[in-house]
């Protein structure tokens, strides 16, 4: 299964919760703290922390799609 991560910069409020949960996948811009996506398709070992990050995001700015590739 492949996980695809999307972030909505227009909703991001720069809380940094995603960076605390999954620093391998998310970062923040230095100047305004807006989310930077480092890994659009993180490996399976990161799926749990990415789901945690999406659940914690106080702006619902992280969306996950789990794709079954044929």
């Amino acid at each position, binding site marked *: 299964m492949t996980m695809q991560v999307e972030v909505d910069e227009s909703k991001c409020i720069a809380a940094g919760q995603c960076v605390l949960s999954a620093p391998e996948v998310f970062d923040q811009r230095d100047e305004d703290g807006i989310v930077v996506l480092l890994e659009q398709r993180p490996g399976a070992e990161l799926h749990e922390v990415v789901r945690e990050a999406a659940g914690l995001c*106080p702006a619902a700015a992280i969306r996950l799609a789990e794709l079954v590739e044929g």
Partner: protein
Amino acid sequence: MSRILVVGASAAGLAAAETLRREGFDGELTLVGDEPHAFYDRPPLSKQILASQWEPGKLALRPPADLEALGLDLRLGVAAAGLDPAGRTVRLADGSELRYDGLIVATGVRPRRLPGEGAHALRTLGDALVLRDRLGRGRRLAVVGAGFLGSEAAAVARGLGAEVVLVEPAPVPLAHAVGTEVGRVLTQAHLDHGVDLRTGVAVVEAGGGGVRLADGELIDADEVLVAVGSVPNTEWLAGSGLTLADGLVCDEYCAAAPGVYGAGDVARWHNPLFDVPMRIEHRTNAAEMGMAAARNLLRPDAEAEARRPFAPVPYFWSDQYDMKIQAYGYLRGHDEIAVVDGDLSGRRFVAAYRTGDHLAGALAVGMPPKALLSWRRAVASRAAWSEAVPSTASVVG
């Protein structure tokens, strides 16, 4: 456990439901919400929605397909009316009863009201849309309460060209939350943006046509917004035997009774990190506590060691005018504040808060958000004040 009931269909309830499914709960999951809409985000109501920058659809916390995948039995537009913990039954306002094996209470808060008729509140999407349609150039808005919500609404209204009078009972707005000196700095932003600020005045009535002060003066306004804090929605739990004291009282695992957990704005729990009971009305806490409550509910007592205490570092943000305010930690009851970066007068600074011998929290205004993360880490590790804060930092309160 085959039936779990979540009462409350906002951020905490959603986080709980998602976590239950992620942790493998595949039984019946019922979610009750008293509003006709569910799973929408509230912080933008006093920001982008009031400013007409966003349409309501952007508030959705999840796309419909994600909600569908949770397999919820969703009961919206009906409030919970009673709880029988011994019989493990919740009664709804329409008379129906729901049995559960596990219950998560996430019924949130509602705005505190003042005497008078016709004033606005700002808690629900409906509230925000009604107020939004009545703001604009040439309109005069009176806001009662210069806390974070009232301040955000005042800032938006000024941005829309409305005349704003902001009435606050305390001598310095937000002093109880962030300290007097920082409160003064935030207050100055209102003055700089042309708000008519009246502090230290008691309001006896807030109605459709204005605000009546204790000394008899009437402040005229086209619209009045009352933003004087919130009341936890716990009335439906009266007589249940659960402990209610400004919220549903929970232990450090978010448990209120066997099989009953609390989450979000409504829940008061003992935060072991700070070793104090707290009830936090912040957006991030709703999600964190919904997750924690769900995880602990799924751990049977026999596996007590698998339960985890809920020990978060609280976080909040507020957007007012051109300022972003962010804070980590528990600032209430602090003993001392020191500016550790920037300066207050420029409204660009980081302030550290001491409670006892520890760094209790940090608040930043106008700083890059990443600059605060090291302070969060220090709060989370219960850093000693003497180690976290340079002795050269300027003490301001």
